């Protein structure tokens, strides 16, 4: 049955018409994911896509795998059940900044700390797309929307920082304008054992058009983003090369030159001390270039492994389940 070896990208396209707005960043993400699926080598029947509600959450319908379009905010919890029931499945959670960080923030936190081996893709378009454009927990303060005609007065959160606080074992960021980068990051996520959290900067052309252009437009990309690579120093810049330095009291961006100070940071996604990825996560535009790539990846036993281990040990210790023994546990007596 494992036709997987020969699977093509198109084998992962379902027969449903894709119904996002023309120009929506979701198309590119879909395409990148379908591409990665073909390379993964996992048979289609062992792949499950689980989403909440939102534009992004229609994703499963377009994947020719198993899929579950659940309810708003709850996909991580549902995915937990799927993965515990069958740890052989490759489970993908699709969520949005509203689905995952507003109504679903708590489930996200808990699936991450439990380290269930599922891959979470959070489409961050900094707006509620499906309900027609209200501000979200990642929207910039001051954003004018139908529900905030005088400007949003909420302070945004940074999905990466939240994931790190949740003790996530794999944390990454990518962006819809770069299929190749997305594909690489998704592949890394798939290969990580434990929960993988990937923030995807996504363009909602209708309600938050080009909100990331300052960061990832081709014209500025090289100067406003930094592509993380293990072992490589944090250097960026199209013409003039700049580096990110840690100077004892904080991070600074400085030109690379012979007189550069010490403290040029070198990327290490496997750094165990929480401070390093946190420091990266605090780099935000315009003060800093925006890091993309894998922030953190550490090995930690998954919840399902530990659960299944406990089951194995219990069987060894107590012997196989006997209903008779169970029924007769405690004090019994005979009548008649």
């Amino acid at each position: 049955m494992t036709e997987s070896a020969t699977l093509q990208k198109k084998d992962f396209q379902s027969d449903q018409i894709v119904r996002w707005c023309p120009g929506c960043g979701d198309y590119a993400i879909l395409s990148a994911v379908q591409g990665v699926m073909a390379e993964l080598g996992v048979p289609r029947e062992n792949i499950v896509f689980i989403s909440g509600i939102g534009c992004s959450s229609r994703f499963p319908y377009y994947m020719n795998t198993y899929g579950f379009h659940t309810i708003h905010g709850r996909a991580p919890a549902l995915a937990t059940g799927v993965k515990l029931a069958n740890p052989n499945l490759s489970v993908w959670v699709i969520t949005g900044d509203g689905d995952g960080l507003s109504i679903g923030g708590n489930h996200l936190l808990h699936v991450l700390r439990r380290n269930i081996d599922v891959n979470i893709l959070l489409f961050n378009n900094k707006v509620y797309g499906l309900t027609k454009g209200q501000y979200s927990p990642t929207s910039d303060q001051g954003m004018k929307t139908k529900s905030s005609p005088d400007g949003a007065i909420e302070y945004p959160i940074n999905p990466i920082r939240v994931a790190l606080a949740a003790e996530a074992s794999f944390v990454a960021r990518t962006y819809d304008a770069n299929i190749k980068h997305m594909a690489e990051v998704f592949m890394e996520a798939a290969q990580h054992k434990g929960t993988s959290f990937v923030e995807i900067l996504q363009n909602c052309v209708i309600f938050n058009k080009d909100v990331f252009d300052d960061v990832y437009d081709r014209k500025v990309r090289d100067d406003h983003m930094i592509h993380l690579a293990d072992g490589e120093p944090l250097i960026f810049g199209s013409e003039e090369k700049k580096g990110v330095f840690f100077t004892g009291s904080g991070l600074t961006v400085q030109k690379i030159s012979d007189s550069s100070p010490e403290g040029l940071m070198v990327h290490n996604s496997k750094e165990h001390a929480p401070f390093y990825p946190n420091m990266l996560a605090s780099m935000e535009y315009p003060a800093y270039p925006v890091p993309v790539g894998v922030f953190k990846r550490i090995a930690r036993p998954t919840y399902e492994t530990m659960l299944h281990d406990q089951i194995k040990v219990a069987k060894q210790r107590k012997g196989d389940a006997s209903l008779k023994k169970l029924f007769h546990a405690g004090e019994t007596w005979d009548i008649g």
Partner: protein
Amino acid sequence: MSKTVERTLLENAIVRFSGDSGDGMQLTGTQFTTTSANLGNDIATFPDFPAEIRAPAGTVPGVSGFQIHFSSRDIHTPGDRPSVLIAMNPAALKANIDDLENGGLLIVNSDAFSKANLKKADYETNPLEDGSVERYRVIKIPITELTHRAVEETGLAKKEADRCKNFYALGIVYYLFDRNMNLTLDWINRKFAKRPEIAAANRLALIAGNSYADTTEIFTTAYSVPPASLTKGKYRSITGNQATAIGFAAAAKLAKRTLFYGSYPITPASDVLHELAALRHFDIQTFQAEDEIAAVCAAIGAAFAGSLALTGTSGPGVCLKSEAINLAIMTELPLVILNVQRAGPSTGMPTKTEQSDLLQAMFGRNGDSPVVILAPATPAECFTYAIESIRIATKYMVPVFILSDGYLANGAEPWRIPDENDLPHIPVSNVAAHSEFLPFERNPETLARGWAVPGTAGLEHRIGGLEKSDGKGNISYDPDNHERMTHYRKEKVARIAHDVPPLEVYGDETADTLILGWGGTYGSIFTAVEWLNQHGVKLAGAHFRYLNPFPANTQDIMRQYKRVIVAEINTGQLDWLIKGQFNIPTTPYQQVRGKPLLVSDLCEFIQGLK
């Protein structure tokens, strides 16, 4: 045992042990229960926990009680009012004295009636001296001091010696009812095997209490309650929560599937989580979720992936699960929702029982969202309906509610242990890969769709909470399709009426009046019917374990009676269902006191009907 007093033969007796939560009353009650059960009595028990973990010692909120009804006949309730009350301190007296039947026997630890303790219990004067317990046969025993003396030889510190009081009291009550102490002595030895000095002290206290009662002739009468003639077999005592957990474990074996229990702790349902968590070797996965929503969602995920999926909680938790239950209804996945009901609304009285979540189970979701509702009638029946819930959920691909309650959950009764080979096999199968697969194709008989489980090549498909097209299961906004699917969901549940046992009538079937009940009130209502029949009142009874759908013969049965009484612990929820469904007039009887229905009140009500 004793030679000094004549023993009066009693058909049954109701004893309540009460004291501070630290006094070990639950343990004392359980010992008395086991001994009586071994003696062959039928038994029913009901513990009454304080709402706090450790309320201040000596206060009324800190009182813990345990009532046991034991009998030489079949019994069905822990009894309305105790005939014997043991009160270990003033607070226990205060909390329980109103329940003691007139002329009942009151055994108090007189040592505990100090000024300080009286104050803690909010007594202005000593009730043992101000005439307020005159209606009862009061026996004051300085239990604390006597216990200390009894265990002196072990050299235990005062505090630890104090802890043996409950066994002293138990010794007294064992004498009173002519019970053999060996089982308890054995238990003490086993339990305190590692602390022999404690074991010795408890043994000494038990024996001393017993001898004290025997030799001092404090009791003018003592009693004996002979064995009942119960069905032959091996028995154990079981609470509703235990029976539920064991039933689920059994169902998993019978269906040959992994069991998944997603739950978030809540009184009085938590013990089901605890029981199942200890059964990892049964391939049982318990998942303590971050909240009730995650618990039910994880269960739905597990159901999608092929596990027998359950989620357990109490009423407030059901509120939170309701959105997700609708997802299970819409995606037609098997899911069992256990609600161990407690007194509501809102946080209500978490440690008290009530039957007021029936209409929530029935209607508590947006849209037309039919589910199956089962309600066990006794603690032991929780076993049966745990299995039944899984049979129905998997056969019909539908969510099934089990409505247990605080009374069933914590109450215990003897359970005749079944032979596992006598239990029904639960046939569950996945859809096998085939070329014509449609996710929402239905079995023409049950209307169930197939269970197509991830991991099966060729069945890849997508489901979700949006309305789906008949058969294919794609998203559909088609008006006719929505109407059709709505009716499928309804009809699928309705058809189950023919797949469950018919409603049975008990009592005097030829009566004009039928009394209906459901779930945990069975014992009280059955006992009332029995008593009334014995006292010349013609009355039939029928008790629902299936609330949605009602058994197929329900309407026929109701038609045979001129008057239908509906008795329940809420302001009329079954009553609504009966009227809404069958359009017949009813005579409602309701108590909403956080307690089981009182048999005597019910009998009085029925006798008063014109």
